[in-house]
């Protein structure tokens, strides 16, 4: 029961309350750039959700098995040329950023090749957005949040398992999709309006983003209310 509540709250929090775009400002570039048509926005959102889930899975696995202090694979590998107690203390967290960005870049490449080979219709709908995603901060951000909940957690029982990491990644992507689709819907209508010259393009998009962010602020505190209502820990 407690675990299900945790998962549910992580999902709601990632998708709505602390929306990646409107609260943490990650993924702003596609939010401004690709939000002109609703179909394009859906394609981009789908691609990001897809890659972010894979990246969350990989980053959680690599952090737990290799990077964190006393991780099993590292201990096993270091055991060949270090005494056991020194091997258990090997800490590779300093390599985290390099490893993550490498994982993201290569998984985007593999996903692109795989989708192009086996799902041509899917490739048509969001394949063109895939290369752009490597430099999408939302993905690295999700990996970093997961790392923050795995490494350096005081109480080992509170460290996130794979289920929670995947939930955060997937629903973070869903939240990104929600934000960018709403934005695209508004911008389609905006083309019929008479926007003052200096505001054309990015400026009016940002101001709409501000109003959307204000609307999403209405969700603040929903998570503690839900937790109380569901009786979770």
């Amino acid at each position, binding site marked *: 029961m407690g675990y299900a509540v945790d998962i549910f709250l992580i999902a709601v929090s990632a998708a709505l309350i602390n929306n990646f775009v409107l609260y943490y*400002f990650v993924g702003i570039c596609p939010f401004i750039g690709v939000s002109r048509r609703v179909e394009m926005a859906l394609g981009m959102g789908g691609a990001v959700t897809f890659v972010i889930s894979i990246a969350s899975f990989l980053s959680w696995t690599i952090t737990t098995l290799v990077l964190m202090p006393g991780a099993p694979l590292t201990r096993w590998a270091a055991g060949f040329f270090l005494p056991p107690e020194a091997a258990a203390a090997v800490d590779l967290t300093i390599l985290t950023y*390099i490893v993550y*960005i490498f994982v993201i870049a290569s998984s985007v490449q593999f996903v692109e090749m795989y989708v192009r080979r086996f799902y041509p219709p899917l490739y048509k709908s969001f394949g063109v957005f895939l290369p752009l995603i490597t430099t999408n901060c939302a993905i*690295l951000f999700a990996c970093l949040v997961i790392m*923050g909940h795995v490494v350096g957690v005081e109480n080992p029982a509170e460290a996130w398992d794979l289920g929670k990491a995947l939930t955060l990644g997937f629903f973070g992507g869903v939240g990104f999709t929600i934000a960018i689709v709403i934005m695209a819907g508004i911008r389609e209508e905006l083309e019929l309006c008479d926007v003052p010259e*200096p505001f054309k393009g*990015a400026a009016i998009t*940002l101001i709409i983003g*501000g109003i959307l962010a204000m609307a999403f602020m209405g969700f603040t505190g929903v998570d503690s209310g839900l937790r109380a209502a569901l009786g979770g820990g």
Partner: protein
Amino acid sequence: MADQPTATERFVQGILPENPVYRQLLGLCSTLAVTNGLKPALTMAGAVGFVLLSANVIISLIRNLLKPHLRIVVFTLIIAAFVTMVDRFLAAYMYSMSKALGPYIPLIIVNCIIICRCEVCASRQSVFTAAADAVGQTAGFALALVSIAAVRELLGTGALAGVRVLPAAWPDWVVMVLPPGAFLTFGLLLALVNWVAARRGGGG
């Protein structure tokens, strides 16, 4: 290489004509996220400046060794290494600031300004030009961050860099230091810059 801009041109262009934030719309994540006060904005500008300068110099030094299809990977790995240094430095010497900036320091890795400058300038021109370009772009980035942060902090808390300047009667517009204020302030300032540029005939 005769038609490439010189070091001085690169430096000057970075500040206003090709300002990374207002004119090229690059690096918006950090621009919006850290501008709720002047101090985090300046720290972020310093961190980005260090990474940009180091990455530009290193890439300019190895530019003849780069293979075209691998260059983006090389850029990213070099940037990630320098970002790790900045992150550890801040955690060691400015712990509270490092906590406040949180994930936005590692997110410098995917800051488009740096990859864009590596691609446009450092991988084609000499070390000196690349360094001048990095300093100019950093100045432009810092200028943009400070302008947004000043507006937000002044209206949101009535203070500048933590020192109260508006009278106590000022009702703090808390929303300005919250996420919506970032979007609104940046949108309005961007429109202002567009307007000024159009009036001066600079295109826009």
